[in-house]
Structure formats: structure tokens, C-alpha cells
């Protein structure tokens, strides 16, 4: 009976992950990330994803500041920021974020300001969707751990 909560939560986690893979939000690289979690780093996935959130939000803020400047012309800097976002997004398996960053980067290489503004909106949208989904995943994981803890008290 006590195990039922754990099983249900695990099923919810599996369902959420399946959905995210199916939508293309995540790709197989996320599985690689999960495989790196072990007893020496039991919160590795959580830690790396949070590093990703911190770094990405700094980059997105910087991109918005650059593009909102009327005198803006530094497309090279936009490109450098986007290289970072493409690299880190691909490393954690954030496929849709990575892909929209690549499209945004193409606009910056053409010095296309309207294209860059549109690209930024799309990246911000995809990023926030990913962040919300990851928070939901972590909440379910937390609940599952607590439920498992209740089942096997120390």
C-alpha cells in the first residue's frame, strides 16, 4: 500500500519524460545526463540543470539588453552569447531550445535585427517552457523520494 504512492509518482515521471521526448523538448542527450548521476553525485542532474538555468538567464538578459539598445550593432557579441546557449542546451539535451538558438544565430550572422528580435522572443518562449517542465519533473522526483522515504523509514 505504501509503495503505491512511489509507483504512481514514478509513472507520472515516466509519462512527463515521454511527453517531453515526444514533443522534441528533450533528446537522447538528456538520458546521457541522467546516466552520469551516481552515488558520488546523487543530485547531478538537478545541479547541472540549475547551472544551465543560471547561465542561460544571464545570457538571455544580456541578449535582450543588446537588442533593445537603439544604437545596437554588435552582432558578433550576439553570436558569442548564442554559441554559449547552443552549446549548453545541446549538452543537457534541450533540443528545442538548441534549435531555436541556431536559427537565432543565423539571423545574427546576417545582421538581421528584426530576425534577431523575433529569434529572441522564440528562444525566451522555449526556454521558459523547458524551465517549467524541469521544475515539474524535479517536484515529482522530490515527492517520489519523500514517498520512498516514508516506505523505508530509518
Amino acid at each position: 500500500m505504501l509503495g503505491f504512492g512511489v509507483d504512481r509518482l514514478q509513472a507520472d515521471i515516466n509519462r512527463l519524460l515521454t511527453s517531453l521526448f515526444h514533443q522534441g523538448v528533450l533528446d537522447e542527450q538528456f538520458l546521457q545526463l541522467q546516466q552520469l548521476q551516481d552515488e558520488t553525485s546523487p543530485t547531478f542532474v538537478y545541479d547541472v540543470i540549475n547551472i544551465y538555468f543560471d547561465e542561460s538567464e544571464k545570457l538571455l538578459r544580456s541578449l535582450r539588453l543588446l537588442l533593445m539598445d537603439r544604437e545596437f550593432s554588435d552582432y558578433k557579441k550576439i553570436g558569442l552569447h548564442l554559441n554559449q546557449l547552443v552549446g549548453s542546451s545541446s549538452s543537457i539535451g534541450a533540443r528545442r531550445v538548441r534549435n531555436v538558438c541556431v536559427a537565432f544565430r543565423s539571423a545574427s550572422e546576417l545582421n538581421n535585427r528584426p530576425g534577431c528580435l523575433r529569434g529572441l522572443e522564440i528562444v525566451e518562449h522555449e526556454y521558459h517552457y523547458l524551465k517549467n517542465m524541469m521544475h515539474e519533473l524535479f517536484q515529482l522526483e522530490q515527492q517520489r523520494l519523500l514517498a520512498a522515504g516514508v516506505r523505508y523509514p530509518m
Partner: protein
Amino acid sequence: MTLAESKLTALVVDDNFVNQTMHHKLLDRLGIRNDVVCNGQEAVDVHCSGRNYDLILMDMEMPILNSIQATKRLREMGIESKIAGVTTRANEGDKKEFMEAGLNDFREKPLTISKLLSILHRLDFYAQT
């Protein structure tokens, strides 16, 4: 082929904290002791301090002495470590320029355990048993 116990050392050169963390862990998982630096200049500096590594994983897109300049500088210093470039871009022009700078291998990100094993195999780091 089986893996011998690794006594290899590696240097991760990447300005992105997520990638640094991932690549460090990937190497740890394969039993490869590794250090991490943030850019090409730090990669050169760490070698100037006397450290040496069997393998250098060099991110292609970095500020402060980019990877091509850093690779050339390391080769000019006589560093014979195997250098594998990693990049988010995989066009042939970039690859050619990078290889001509002195790389031994070149891979598109993201790095995975299997890509890393493939790099190690290609660079003859594991002995056949």
C-alpha cells in the same frame, strides 16, 4: 577490446560552465583524472606552469585566445598531447582550419560517453587485451 585501468589525464578547455561540468563528469566516469580551464589562455598558462596531459578537450568557440590560436600556441610550445576539438558547428571549413592548427580529432557537441570512447580509441589510448 577491454578497457585497461585508466592512468590517463585530461584537460577540459571550455568557457561554458554547463559543458565544463558535463565533460569533467564524463572523464571522471571513465576514470580519467582531469582539470578544467575556462579559455585558451588558461590552457596555455597551465602548461607553462609545468603541467602536462595526455588528452586536451578543446572547445572551439571561446573568447580570450580562441581555440585555434591556443592549439597553435601549444604546438609551438612543443606540447604533444592529443588535442580533440569540440564544437557546436560542424561545417567543413571550420573543421579544416581547426585541424590545420594542430588538432588530432574533431567532434561535434554534445559529447557523450560513446563519443569520448571513440576519441580515445581513435587516438590509441586504450591497449588491446
